């Protein structure tokens, strides 16, 4: 039976309604995907070696880029903040300014963006290629849940590695700031680290920790979802990879703002 065509005046409303339903459906699928992955983390069999492999894939292999970006971010911060503080005669506060910027904000966000660029894109491409070459179907017809094998270990590894990557980024960044502030611009070592101890407290560290933890879930969730629901062929994988990196990056910044408004 064919549907009766809608009156012309109602067609825009129909299009808006269909669009809204499609968005809600997509969000529902996205949410159910995470729920299924978390469900498999809570029920045996646990894929311990797949989890270790993902730690290596997401964490260890991102170490070099984290060290480089962390170090140079701290150095740039040291340089710029020093010349700003000098105008007010407050250069003694360089240590806390660098540390607070890194620990509360830049460390979690930049580390997450870097890991997204390096590991998130690779994760999407890897799962996407497995999808188009029917490797995921092969798992399914072996009565093995591909989410348990491919998605859950990645999300768990994201939870573990993102805070660690952030901690390394922060530490290297603080030493980058030290190199510029103390070794290059002549601030005393005691002032740099002493003022840091005075102004940085546990709340600041916990804020960075919660942010990095949530970014760990967010990035691996988005990247595995995009890989799992890839289109056709090489073009589909390329599009999914781009979408995963763009969506993850945008969500990191949006979620960072919300976390910043909620956390003390």
């Amino acid at each position, binding site marked *: 039976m064919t549907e009766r065509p809608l009156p012309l005046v109602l067609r825009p409303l129909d299009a808006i309604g269909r669009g809204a339903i499609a968005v809600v459906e997509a969000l529902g699928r996205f949410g159910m995907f995470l729920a299924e992955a978390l469900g498999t983390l809570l029920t045996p069999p646990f894929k311990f070696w797949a989890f270790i492999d993902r730690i290596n894939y997401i964490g260890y292999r991102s170490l070099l880029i984290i060290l480089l970006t962390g170090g140079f971010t701290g150095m740039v911060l040291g340089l710029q903040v020093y010349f700003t503080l000098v105008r007010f005669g407050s250069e003694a506060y360089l240590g806390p300014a660098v540390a607070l910027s890194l620990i509360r904000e830049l460390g979690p966000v930049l580390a997450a963006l870097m890991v997204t660029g390096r590991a998130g894109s690779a994760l999407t491409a890897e799962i996407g290629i497995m999808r188009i070459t029917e*490797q995921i179907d092969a798992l399914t017809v*072996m009565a*093995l849940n591909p989410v348990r094998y491919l998605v859950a270990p990645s999300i768990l590894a994201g939870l573990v590695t993102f805070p660690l990557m952030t901690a390394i980024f922060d530490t290297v960044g603080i030493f980058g700031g030290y190199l510029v502030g103390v070794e290059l611009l002549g601030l005393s070592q005691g002032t740099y680290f002493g003022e840091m101890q005075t102004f940085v407290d546990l709340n600041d560290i916990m804020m960075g920790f919660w942010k990095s933890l949530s970014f760990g879930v967010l990035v691996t969730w988005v990247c595995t979802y995009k890989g799992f629901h890839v289109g056709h062929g090489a073009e589909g994988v390329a599009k999914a990879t781009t979408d995963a990196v763009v969506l993850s990056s945008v969500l990191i910044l949006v979620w960072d703002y919300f976390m910043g408004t909620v956390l003390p």
Partner: protein
Amino acid sequence: MIKIERLVKSFGSQQVLRGLDLEVATGSITVIIGRSGGGKSVLLRHLIGLLRPDGGRVLVNGADVTRLGGRALDEVRRRYGVVFQGGALFDSMTCAANVAFPLRENLRLPAAEVATRVEASLAQVGLEGMGSKYPAEVSGGMRKRVAIARALVTEPEIVFFDEPTTGLDPILVNTIHHLVLNLHRKLRFTAVMVSHEIPEIFEIADAVAMLHDGRIVEVGPPGVIQASPNRVVRQFIRGEPEGAEGA
């Protein structure tokens, strides 16, 4: 026995299966033939539970796999072996690890037994000593044989072959077909094969079903299909250039 009843499937406005009926006898090799893009692989994906139909049902030993989900569907799938068109081997694993995978993950056999069965399985498909190679390091024909070894290592009751000889030269096509035939004689599984390798499949099939326009237009033993008066079947098996459109 596999019984397909009035199977209907559309993708958007394109109706691929239009009330398809087919019966596959236990222990037989049934080959589904038909033009490329005609819905053979779509039909196969319904049989293995990767697609849900818009209508109709697929009964496997009495259980409707189109209605099953979760553990019940997994129970049915554990009796399946599937050889995908491209092999679908896990490229991060060696050929031996690929064959061992269903044994390790599904049957939870001890490592020593897994190793013995993997070796025997690779030997069965003529790949002794090749287990340590990765899928990317072996030829297309070898990859297909590894895929067959992986599908058969758990000794399934039903094995599905999705165009297992696509992209292979005529000698390899015959090698794979005879490998399937020999393994079938030895292991007595029910085989459903999607193929358009004419006339080679007539040598191995117990039954051939011609899929055209979303329906099975003729089914029977190879001799009956080869002598079929049906114009669509005749055109297809003779490979006449005007094809099936004129039917």
